[in-house]
């Protein structure tokens, strides 16, 4: 470390993986900024971020209820039938005494994704109307913390593996829930990829400056 305190760059950005200071450059959507020192992805600008995120998060919220609560498939065997939904399967796990597993599954598949979508909706709405009516800096912070812990797309792969495990054992009817769930995963993925975190934070900062 140098003993001389260097003058910080006026518009410096700092890599969160290796702490190197870099000049802030204007990047057009479609490009990705990588850190020259450690190779981590620094920033991916998105076009029309606010509108698209708003649209996709509303789509995802509409699909959320049917995807989680309606049966995803029905199994027919021995003249009996049995169907399961995403939330129903987790509750059944809870009833069998697997409290820890079911609570983690419920949080990561249902609660956190729902919160993330609601937070995205509120933040995007707030930025769109240029009003800080939801305390969006706090909401945006919550969104950042939940990022790592919401994994409905893993459940999607889980459904596929389950189908492959049982399709030769019995007749499967695919129900509304499955199609809604696929749509939900697509909408969630689109919403979180069109969300430009840096743009959002800068917009929030501008909003805070305006209010002061």
């Amino acid at each position, binding site marked *: 470390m140098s003993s001389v305190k260097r003058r910080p760059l006026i518009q410096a950005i700092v890599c969160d993986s290796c702490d190197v200071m870099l000049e802030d*450059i204007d990047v057009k959507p479609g490009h990705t900024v990588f850190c020259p020192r450690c190779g981590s992805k620094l920033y991916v600008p998105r076009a029309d971020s606010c509108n698209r995120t708003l649209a996709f998060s509303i789509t995802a919220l509409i699909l959320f209820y049917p995807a989680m609560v309606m049966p995803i498939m029905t199994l027919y065997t021995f003249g009996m039938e049995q169907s399961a939904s995403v939330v129903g*399967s987790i509750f059944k796990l809870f009833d069998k005494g697997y409290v820890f597993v079911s609570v983690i599954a419920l949080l990561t598949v249902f609660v956190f994704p729902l919160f993330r979508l609601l937070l995205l909706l509120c933040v995007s709405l707030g930025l769109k109307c240029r009003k800080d009516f939801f305390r969006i800096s706090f909401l945006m912070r919550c969104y950042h913390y939940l990022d790592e812990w919401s994994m409905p797309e893993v459940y999607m792969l889980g459904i596929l593996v*389950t189908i492959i495990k049982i399709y030769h054992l019995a007749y499967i009817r695919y129900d509304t829930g499955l199609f809604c769930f696929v749509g939900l995963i697509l909408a969630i993925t689109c919403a979180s990829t069109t969300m430009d975190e840096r743009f959002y934070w800068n917009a929030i900062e501008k909003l805070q400056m305006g209010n002061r």
Partner: protein
Amino acid sequence: MTGAEHNSTVARGEIDPDTAISAGLALCHVCKKVLPFEEQGELFCPRCGARVHLRKTDSMARTWAFLITAAILLFPANLLPIMRVNHFGVYESSTILDGIIYFFQNGSYGIGLIILVASILVPAFKIVGIGMVLLSVHFRWQSWSRHKTLMFRGIEFVGRWSMLDIFVVALLQAIVDFAPLTSVEVGPGARYFTGVVLFTLFATVSFDLRLIWDT
């Protein structure tokens, strides 16, 4: 692809580049705002309200603790049955490995490979990988920093997919429920496996990548 242009006076990969810490700056972890930092007192980010640290608190100790917990849990997770299949009153227990062998014997190599990667290779790779990074920080090995950073980024990305097996079992036990003829029950291994995934995720969250680069 455009790389962010680095200050041209410092060559790429040198030991003493322009780090924020040497300039008295700290990065807000949540909103990535660059703030002047003094040693005394607490600093809260004016933009997002999160507490700002130069480095994550007790990063090494916490990551070691989570990692060792995950490594211990890995044994019961793989040795105990994760699933029990009841077929006309006859119970057959199967561990994660049994499930993979079942797929390979039936010729479903693709799906067998997915579960092998998600359930066995990813947790093992995560624990070994994070362990290597921690050891290198502990003994101040300076080489391969770029590779270590990228490997850690990779570990962060794949970590969540280990939950796959838990979700498969959760769905199977709900839908294959034709007791007493045939049913699928969860085995005690599922608890430990969830623990492994949870603690490896905690370990990646608590580790501060910049420690690799600090001399």
